[in-house]
């Protein structure tokens, strides 16, 4: 089975570039240049320099002793929560901004849900002196005031998306419309492994540093470089794509993707795309999509804004369909419990997104000798308001 993208942007039955002609020149420019540019030596040098000295990589692979003893196995946490700005998102924004500069772009646009990708984009734009415009759903602006303030302090302009359901999906629509209206000088930084080809592949490559480091670090800490399990949460799926990337062709490594079940898969308030979704097209690619019988996109729900998306990236749809990854889900309450458990056992307050991945520990029967890596994609500071309600 092949898990890399083909020349037309497909992973098996999913992917492609379903874009209106107005976006074609921009997307083609990216498609024709991204691989050439990102593997140039000077690009790689600057990318790795910024990942290390600015974002704080490599992030630790921490052996969680008390958690391991509770689940009678060997659990390592990949500490993406220790990245600058508090999540893995910055790996991708550094990569894409360097690429945008190479392409001569002067203006950066992005969409954001909870604000983590918006903050990571605003941060690197400030570092590089580029104009930054972030689209954010009007409802999310109300819910995520601290991240809005961060983006403004970093010099970004935050534009409320007032169309449709006024959340992440609509912020993405507005960013796409901005790109249509500014076809020459603007680069659109998509924050996840979604969107038209080459975005899913490009973002996965920038995030693949996560699994590259896991392999090296595991070899140092254990006697092998392949874990038995890699567990990550999936909204659009960028941290999962990064954590799975270098293990995709090693079938002995079980890949576990955890979706947000919200109030429960059949509650009508959920974001468990593989459980409820059907093949469909949103934001320029064919993937699994939560939608009505008439093909209207359904508004998802999750306690974690970062998982509150009605689709998943086409790579993940392919991993699901082919059986390469096992998809599970965690409800809002299960995720909260997992977050409190990690806080008390290991002194690490995880992001609500990452807490979904932690819940998978309860659903798998591990062997005592198993090596389990959980991608701790972000830290929980941004979720304190939610956590405080449940203390």
């Amino acid at each position: 089975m092949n898990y890399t993208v083909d020349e037309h942007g497909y992973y098996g039955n999913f992917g492609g570039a379903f874009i209106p002609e107005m976006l074609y020149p921009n997307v083609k420019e990216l498609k024709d240049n991204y691989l050439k540019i990102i593997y140039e030596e000077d690009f790689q040098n600057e990318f790795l320099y910024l990942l290390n000295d600015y974002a704080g990589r490599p992030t630790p692979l921490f052996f969680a002793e008390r958690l391991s003893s509770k689940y009678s196995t060997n659990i390592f946490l990949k500490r993406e929560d220790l990245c600058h700005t508090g999540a893995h998102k910055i790996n991708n924004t550094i990569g894409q901004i360097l690429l945008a500069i190479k392409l001569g772009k002067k203006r950066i646009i992005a969409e954001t849900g909870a604000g983590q990708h918006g903050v990571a984009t605003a941060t690197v734009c400030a570092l590089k002196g580029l104009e930054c415009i972030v689209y954010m759903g009007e409802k999310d602006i109300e819910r995520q005031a601290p991240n809005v303030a961060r983006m403004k302090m970093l010099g970004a302009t935050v534009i409320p998306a007032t169309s449709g359901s006024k959340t992440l999906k609509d912020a993405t629509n507005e960013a796409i419309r901005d790109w249509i209206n500014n076809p020459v000088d603007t680069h659109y930084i998509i924050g996840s492994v979604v969107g038209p080809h080459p975005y899913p592949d490009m973002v996965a490559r920038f995030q693949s540093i996560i699994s590259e480091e896991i392999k090296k670090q595991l070899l140092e800490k254990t006697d092998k470089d392949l874990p038995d399990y890699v567990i990550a949460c999936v909204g659009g799926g960028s941290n999962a794509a990064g954590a799975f990337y270098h293990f995709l062709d090693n079938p002995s490594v079980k890949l576990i993707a955890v979706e947000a079940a919200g109030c429960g898969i059949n509650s009508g308030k959920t974001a468990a795309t593989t459980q409820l979704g059907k093949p469909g097209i949103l934001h320029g690619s064919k993937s699994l999509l939560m939608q009505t019988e008439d093909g209207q996109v359904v508004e998802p729900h999750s306690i974690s804004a970062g998982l509150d998306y009605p689709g998943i990236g086409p790579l993940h749809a392919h991993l699901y369909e082919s059986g390469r990854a096992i998809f599970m889900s965690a409800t809002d309450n299960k995720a909260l419990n997992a977050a409190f458990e990690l806080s008390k056992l290991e002194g690490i307050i995880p992001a609500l997104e990452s807490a979904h991945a932690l819940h998978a520990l309860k659903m798998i029967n591990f062997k005592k000798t198993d090596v389990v890596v959980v991608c701790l994609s972000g830290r929980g500071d941004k979720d304190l308001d939610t956590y405080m309600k449940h203390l």
Partner: protein
Amino acid sequence: MTSKQKMNNRLTKLFSERKTGILNMYCTAGYPQLHSTIEVISALQNCGADIVEIGIPYSDPIADGPVIQNSNMQALENGMSIPMLFDQLKNIRESIEIPVILMGYMNPVLQFGIEKFCEAAARVGVDAIILPDLPMYEFETQYRQFFEKNNLKFIFLVTPETSEARIREIDNLCSGFIYAVSSSATTGIAQNPADDKAIESQQAYLKKLGDMSLTNPILVGFGIKDKPSFDSACTYTNGAIIGSAYINALKNTSSIAATTKDFIKRIKG
């Protein structure tokens, strides 16, 4: 080009008879009211529109500006869907003679089933389809046969940023007409009329298209709202498409017939 693609229908007949000043009017199905679709089509025919383009509402219309987005939301709230639209259109050919085009986004059509969609469209007397987020590669490799089998013309867009080589490729695959987007924008975003440079470059782009001797006729869309913008769009091409401005006019109308009459009078003079 296959023989099927050359098959005539109302749309090709119109372009073989008329070369200039063709007015294509757009309205979202189920807007302003769920059951006003037919009334709008009739009013447009009666007032002299040459083609009517019916939009299939979608929750995420990324190529559209705020006016058409809102009409999509309104139509969905009104209860519009593809099965309902085909039901509304089932007897149109008893009274409507002008070409009818359906415009929509891929996802609702995909859920309905593309083959079934093409068959239903042909059955009610639709002449052509516009799906702006169906690119050439997927059209050619997966879906072209369904449109051709049902003698539905398939219309592609070009923009000022589309290269000449790609325009030729599009012209090869396109049937009916080429939809020339007047500026790089979402629908309803008009050029600033005070900006002479923008108008000049738009005219140069349309002239370039006109001079390319393409197989397909060309209609210009996006930002056309009155007689000057209509006339200007028609200078080098076969006609123009009006959407957002008409949707705006229908917003609070008490008489679709009267509003349509006034609107088209302002365009045609």
